[in-house]
C-alpha cells in the first residue's frame, strides 16, 4: 500500500552525509521545514565502540552485498571489457550507509583544494583523452565556506609557510593541532634534509571540546570507526544534531528513495521511497536536494525517468553519470624495527593513539624532468598502519613468494610483526583525470533487494594519472629513506578507492556539457540541487570531504536566498 507523508516540506533532502549535512543545518536554522530521507539506519554515538567485528569484519555500517551490490566494469589484462558484481568479487563499493553517511567513518584528513585546482585546464592545458575543464567558480568563491567548515564542523591544525599554502581569510585553524607521535618529528627532519618542509595535516577532529562535543581521546581507532567522543566532524554530530534541535528538521532513517517524480514539466513534485518495512511512501516538497554520494546520486537520477526526461532526470544531454572521478595515486610504506632503535625512541614510537599528521605538498606542481613541462602533481599523507589487529594479521598470510603461510611459521611471523615492527604508511593523492571511460549507468540485469537496477560503474583511468602517481611515490620514498625506515615500497595503480568518489553530475556554465549550473541546481530541472561530490568536474589532489562540505554550505546559501524571495 502506498502512503503519502501529509506534511509539505520546504525542502526534501536525499541523503545525510557530508554533502547533505550543511544544507540540513543551514536551512533548518533559517527556519525552513526540512525533510531528510536517509537510506540507512540511525546509529547514535553510544552505538559506536572500537570493535573491529562491527567496523570492519561485518556489513553493519554498509549494506550486505547479497542485498545490494554494484557492478564494476573494467578492461581486463587481455584488453576486453569485463563486468563483475561486487557480491561476486568481494570488492565492496559501499561506504557508510547510515545517518551522517561515510563522514562518520572518515579519518578526517582535511585539506583544501588549491586555487589552480579550479582552473586545471587554463593552468596546465588540455591532456589528450581527458575531459579536463575549469570550474565555473574560483577558489576565492569557495574560501569563505572552507573557513565556515573549519569553525562549524571543526578543523584542528597548524599553519606553516610553504610554497603551496592556499590563501586564507583567517590567520590559523580554530583548534590547535592534535597530539603527535615522535615519528612526526622524524618526518620533519627527513624532509628538511631534502630541502623542503612537510605540512602539518589538518584534521576534522576536535583537539579541544566544543559545545556538547568532546575532544579527541586518542583511542587509536579512527578511520573506519564511528567516533565515541564526538570529536570527529561527522555530518551527524557537527550539523544534523544541531538541525534537529531547531524543530524544523524531520529525519527518517531506513528510507530508500528510488524515484523523483516530476509534474511532467521541469519540476519535481515528490520523492518516492521505501520505508523500513519495505512499503512505498512519498514525500512532497518545494525543493529537492540529492546528496547520496556520487555513484548513488547518478543512479537515482537515471532511475527517475519522467515525461520530458526519458533517459533520467536532469539527463537532457546524456551527461548524468559521466566523468566519474576518484582519487588517483596509491599507497606505500616502510617498517621501523624497534630493536634497531634506541630504547627511548622505540618506546616513543610504540605509543598508540597519537597521530602522524604530516603531508607532502612540495610537489603539488612540478616540472617534468624529460620535457620541462609544468605538471600538476599532488600530495602525500603519512600515517601509521591501522591498529585493526585482524587486518594486520591478514597481511601476514602470504610469504614473500606469495605462498600461503600457516603453522608455526605463521605464528612466528605474527609475533615478530606485531611485537617488533611499527609500519609507517603513506598515501598518494593526485588528480584522477575525467575521461569518457569512467562513468555510471544502470545495470540492465542486476537488481537490488527492492528490485531496482543497481549502478554499473565503468572504471578507466588515464595513463597520466599513473605517471604523476609514480613521480609522487618516488618523492615519498625519499622521505621514508631519510627517516631510516626499512622495507620501503610503493604501489601506484589505477584501482579506484571507493571512498573517494566524485563527479557524475559536473557543474558548469554550459547546459549542453554539464548537468548542474554554477549554483549546483540542475540546468534542466527547476527545483533540483545536488550537493555531494557529484558536482566536481575535476577533483584536485587531496581528499574531497572538506570541499564537499564547503560547497554544500555555499549551495545552502543559494537555496535560502531563493526561498526567501
Amino acid at each position, binding site marked *: 500500500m502506498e502512503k503519502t507523508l501529509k506534511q509539505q516540506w520546504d525542502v526534501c533532502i536525499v541523503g545525510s552525509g557530508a554533502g547533505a549535512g550543511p544544507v540540513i543545518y543551514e536551512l533548518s536554522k533559517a527556519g525552513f521545514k526540512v525533510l531528510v530521507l536517509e537510506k540507512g539506519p540511525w546509529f547514535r554515538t553510544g552505538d559506536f565502540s572500537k570493535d573491529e567485528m562491527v567496523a570492519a569484519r561485518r556489513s553493519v555500517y554498509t549494506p550486505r552485498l547479497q542485498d545490494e551490490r554494484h557492478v564494476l566494469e573494467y578492461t581486463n589484462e587481455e584488453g576486453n571489457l569485463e563486468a563483475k558484481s561486487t557480491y561476486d568479487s568481494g570488492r565492496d563499493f559501499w561506504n557508510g550507509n547510515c545517518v551522517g553517511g561515510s563522514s562518520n567513518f572518515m*579519518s578526517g584528513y582535511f585539506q583544501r583544494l588549491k586555487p589552480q585546482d579550479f582552473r586545471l585546464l587554463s593552468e596546465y592545458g588540455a591532456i589528450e583523452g581527458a575531459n579536463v575543464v575549469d570550474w565555473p567558480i574560483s577558489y576565492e568563491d569557495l574560501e569563505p565556506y572552507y573557513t565556515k567548515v573549519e569553525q562549524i564542523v571543526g578543523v584542528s591544525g597548524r599553519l606553516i609557510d610553504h610554497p603551496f599554502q592556499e590563501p586564507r581569510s583567517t590567520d590559523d585553524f580554530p583548534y590547535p593541532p592534535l597530539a603527535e607521535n615522535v615519528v612526526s618529528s622524524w618526518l620533519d627532519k627527513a624532509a628538511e634534509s631534502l630541502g623542503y618542509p612537510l605540512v602539518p595535516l589538518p584534521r576534522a577532529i576536535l583537539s579541544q571540546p566544543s559545545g556538547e562535543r568532546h575532544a579527541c581521546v586518542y583511542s587509536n581507532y579512527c578511520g573506519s570507526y564511528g567516533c565515541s567522543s564526538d570529536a570527529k566532524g561527522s555530518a551527524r554530530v557537527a550539523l544534523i544534531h544541531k538541525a534537529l534541535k531547531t524543530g524544523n528538521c524531520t529525519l527518517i532513517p531506513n528510507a530508500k528513495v528510488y524515484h523523483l517524480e516530476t509534474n511532467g514539466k521541469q519540476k519535481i513534485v515528490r520523492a518516492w521511497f521505501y520505508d523500513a518495512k519495505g512499503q512505498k511512501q512519498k514525500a512532497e516538497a518545494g525543493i529537492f536536494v540529492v546528496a547520496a554520494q556520487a555513484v548513488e546520486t547518478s543512479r537515482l537520477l537515471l532511475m527517475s525517468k519522467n515525461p520530458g526526461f526519458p533517459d533520467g532526470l536532469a539527463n537532457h544531454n546524456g551527461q548524468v553519470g559521466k566523468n566519474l572521478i576518484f582519487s588517483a595515486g596509491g599507497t606505500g610504506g616502510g617498517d621501523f624495527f624497534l630493536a634497531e632503535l634506541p630504547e627511548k625512541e622505540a618506546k616513543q614510537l610504540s605509543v598508540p593513539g597519537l597521530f602522524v599528521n604530516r603531508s607532502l605538498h612540495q610537489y603539488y606542481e612540478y616540472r617534468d624532468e624529460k620535457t620541462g613541462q609544468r605538471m600538476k602533481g599532488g600530495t602525500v599523507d603519512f600515517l601509521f598502519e591501522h591498529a585493526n589487529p585482524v587486518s594486520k594479521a591478514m597481511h601476514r598470510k602470504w610469504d614473500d613468494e606469495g605462498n600461503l603461510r600457516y603453522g608455526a611459521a605463521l605464528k612466528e611471523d605474527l609475533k615478530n610483526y606485531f611485537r617488533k615492527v611499527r609500519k609507517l604508511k603513506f598515501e598518494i593523492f593526485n588528480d584522477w583525470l575525467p575521461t569518457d571511460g569512467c562513468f555510471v549507468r544502470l545495470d540492465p540485469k542486476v537488481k537490488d533487494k527492492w528490485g531496482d537496477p543497481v549502478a554499473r560503474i565503468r572504471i578507466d583511468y588515464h595513463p597520466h594519472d599513473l605517471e604523476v602517481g609514480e613521480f609522487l611515490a618516488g618523492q615519498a620514498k625519499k622521505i621514508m629513506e631519510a627517516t631510516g625506515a626499512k622495507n620501503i615500497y610503493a604501489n601506484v595503480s589505477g584501482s579506484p578507492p571507493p571512498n573517494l568518489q566524485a563527479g557524475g553530475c559536473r557543474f558548469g556554465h554550459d547546459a549542453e556539457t554539464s548537468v548542474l549550473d554554477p549554483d549546483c541546481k540542475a540546468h534542466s530541472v527547476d527545483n533540483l540541487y545536488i550537493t555531494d561530490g557529484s558536482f566536481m568536474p575535476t577533483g584536485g589532489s587531496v581528499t574531497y570531504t572538506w570541499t564537499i562540505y564547503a560547497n554544500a554550505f555555499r549551495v545552502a546559501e543559494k537555496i535560502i536566498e531563493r526561498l526567501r524571495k
Partner: protein
Amino acid sequence: MSKVLHNKEDSLFPSPPKLPHRRKFIRQVLLSGIAVQLPFFFSCSEERKDNTIHRKTDLVNTIQQILFPDTPDSPGIEDTGAFAYFNRIVRDERLDPEEREYLQNGLRWVNETAQEETKKDFVQLTFPQQKQLIKKISAYSWGEAWLSRMLTVIFEALLLDPIYGVNLQESGWKWLGHVPGSPRPSKRNRYPDILIRKEEFIAVSRLEQLSNDGKHTKNK
C-alpha cells in the same frame, strides 16, 4: 561476499582482495564417484549423523590445529575459541549463504582428497599424514583459497574482542602485545545486536504517525 572473508581496509586506498572470485576454486573432483559413495556430512540415519558430527568436529579441529599449532609461549587453537567460532559463522544467517556453504564444502573437499590419495577419511589418517595432506592441498588453487578462508576465521578468533567468545582471556591480544581501543563493545552494540535497533522502530512509528494523521511532531 561478506566481510568475514575480506577485510575492509582502513586505508583510503583499499587493496583488491588477494584472491580472485571464489567460484574459480570449486574443486575439480578427479574421482567424481567418490563424493556420491561417501556422503561424508550428509548421511541420514541417526547413527551416521552422530558419527558425522564427531568426524566433522575432528576434521575442523585437526585442520585448525595444523593451521595454528600449539607452540611455546603462545595461545593454542583452543585458547582462541576458533572451533566454536567456526560453527557460529556457518550458522550465522546474516552472512552470505554461499560463503557459509563454501566454508563447509571445503571440509568435504579435504576429505575427498584424503580418499583420493589414501583411500581413507581424513580423520583416519595419522597426524603427520594429515599435515602432509594439508601441505599438498595448500598447493592447489582451491585448497590455498579455502585454507586462507579458514585462517581468516582463526585470525578473527585470535584477535576480535572476547565478547564474541573468542580470544579467551584476551590471550591473542596479550601474546601479540595488542592494545584494544576504548570503549570496548558491549552486549548492546556488538554484532549482531547493533543491527537490532530500537531507534529504528521509533523512527518507523513516527513515520506512520506522519502518514496517518498528518501531524508534524517536531524533533526534540
